[in-house]
């Protein structure tokens, strides 16, 4: 394991060097809040930023993503044949991603990148991406990442983990992708591993201890699906829900999408958009029948999927990384932590 010391004064210079090879993404203040954005020339990520409203999932799984095009001009040989659109998959790096947000990509992979099925759009974007995480030294009150098998220093899906030690970052180089990015930045001040690891371990313990928010889900595995599905509390939980898509769109692990075709004159594009199980349309059949007609059914679906169906199917923990975005942004304050406790009790 290589650990590089980066003087913060040299950080931006290093990023500029990396731009020759990488498209950079990071948190930028837009109006009054932070969003993950592609960084233009001389734009640097705000490493001190609080959480971005939306998770970084859009870097690899955009809200609207073109997939295929077709030419409808019958005079052309290739008419009506869908062809993959050209997308730029040259290397990109996400800077300062929270370690648990990065872990969320591992969860998305379970859906998009399996032995049997590989979603080319996700896989190509994922392969092109280097995740440069920033350990969370001061977790916020919404952060319950340590309760869901990740945490403020989780390295599971990072290529580099940066640890802020005041005037400098310690960069723990985890993968070859990470190694390449760090060397392209010109950061090469290798530091004594033992000392650095000790510092990191201290900060990690401190951060984990600072997490005030927890959820328990230890009993979920022992309950049957039907027991939870038929539990008496769903109507009460769902009462206040307005069925907007906020929770699913801000979530780093929600992966559902809808495919649309649009045609203009002789050209057609097929693209996909994030979809939300909160919407009635999500499950409406062409016949008009809707298996999730009521809002209680839709609210139950979201929580059952994250906290029961997913863990049962994949045996990889909950479909939640404890970022707290849905808790913070839900317009009516539906709180997944509370619901998880209710399901677990």
């Amino acid at each position: 394991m290589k650990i590089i010391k980066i003087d913060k004064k040299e950080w931006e210079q290093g990023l500029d060097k990396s731009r020759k090879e990488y498209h950079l993404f990071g948190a930028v203040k837009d109006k009054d809040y932070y969003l993950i954005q592609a960084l233009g020339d001389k734009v640097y990520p705000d490493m001190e930023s609080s959480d971005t409203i939306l998770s970084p999932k859009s870097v690899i799984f955009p809200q609207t993503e073109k997939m295929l095009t077709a030419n409808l001009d019958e005079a052309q040989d290739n008419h009506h044949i869908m062809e993959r659109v050209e997308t730029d998959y040259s290397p990109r790096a996400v800077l300062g991603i929270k370690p648990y947000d990065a872990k969320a990509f591992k969860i998305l992979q379970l859906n998009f990148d399996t032995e049997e099925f590989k979603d080319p759009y996700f896989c190509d974007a994922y392969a092109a991406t280097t995740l440069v995480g920033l350990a969370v030294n001061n977790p916020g009150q919404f952060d319950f990442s340590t309760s869901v098998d990740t945490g403020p220093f989780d390295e599971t899906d990072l290529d580099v983990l940066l640890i802020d030690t005041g005037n400098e970052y310690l960069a723990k180089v985890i993968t070859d992708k990470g190694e390449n990015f760090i060397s392209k930045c010109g950061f090469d001040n290798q530091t004594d591993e033992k000392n650095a690891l000790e510092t990191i371990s201290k900060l990690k313990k401190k951060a984990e201890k600072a997490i005030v928010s927890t959820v328990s889900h230890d009993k979920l595995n022992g309950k049957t699906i039907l027991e939870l599905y038929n539990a008496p509390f769903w109507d009460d939980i769902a009462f206040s829900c307005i069925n907007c898509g906020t929770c699913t769109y801000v979530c780093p692990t929600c992966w559902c999408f809808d495919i649309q075709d649009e045609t203009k004159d002789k050209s057609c594009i097929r693209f996909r958009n994030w979809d939300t199980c909160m919407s009635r349309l999500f499950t409406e059949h062409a016949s008009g029948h809707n298996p999730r007609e009521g809002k209680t059914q839709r609210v139950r679906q979201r929580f059952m999927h994250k906290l029961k169906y997913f863990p049962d199917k994949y045996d990889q923990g909950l479909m939640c990384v404890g970022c707290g975005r849905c808790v913070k942004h839900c317009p009516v304050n539906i709180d997944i932590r509370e619901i998880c406790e209710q399901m677990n009790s």
Partner: protein
Amino acid sequence: MHTYTEKIQNLAKDVLKQGKAEMVIGFKQGTIPMAANPFVAKNENDADNLIWSSTCGLNLANYLPGIKKCEGKIGIIAKGCDSRNIVTHIVENKIDREKLYIIGLPCTGMVDKKQIALLFDDEITQFSEEGNTLIVKSETKEEKINKQEYLRSNCKTCTHRNPVIYDELVSDLVEEQIIEDQFADVKKIEAMSSEEKWDFFDKLTEDCIRCYACRNACPLCYCPTCFVDESGPQWVGKGQNTDDIKTFHYLRAYHCAGRCTDCGACEEACPMDIKVRNFTRKLNKDSLELFNWEAGLDISQRPPLDTYQPDDPDDFIM
């Protein structure tokens, strides 16, 4: 604790005990600072969870059409704007007046949570209020601020703080605000050139994620299928195309013409802090200027877009 909280709890208990209503829709304390969770109390024990605070900015009238299983009356806590949306529901035949037991709440305004959050670099950990003073704390500092300065913009220009329809009141009526220029914000946009206006609304909607929280938080938006959700025919594209996003916002606004009470629930709900009232405010101004109409004041009045008068303004017809 807000002085209304205890009164609401007692009134709700009484209402439930006496069978004046089968349930009471109100708010309970949220799980995070500055959050209130819409809640229905079905018995006296539940009523102990009802609260009031200056963060109860959502519009409870929104929940009325969704209640299907209720033999008796539905009780509802209604501040000024909620009561106006109840009137609108009655006028539009969504619900019978006889079906409701309205606990009116004279309101002194709701706070702008996003503006308060901007006072802090870190997260707010505590929020409480004493009269007109808001006490807001984070890990690093504490602020005592004057509530009137941190009201939501719709509350700043509100002239109907008192409920317009009720069976019982939580407190004495409050004094209504006299607003010198109710539509200064709209006039500012009206003074712009076409290009400036276009750019203003471009910028306004650029971060929209189409979660439809604005629509779903709005008591007016009760269509069984919204035009954006129609698939045969599909009226509007579903991607993140700016013209599709704007089409949604324009058409939603049109559907609120002469109906909007400027309750601010749409902006309150928006996760991206988009000031969507910029669309509906223009229509409210026109309703007032052209038809001398403010929505939801009187259950015996039909709305202007629902009636014809020989003297309706028609100078737009060439």
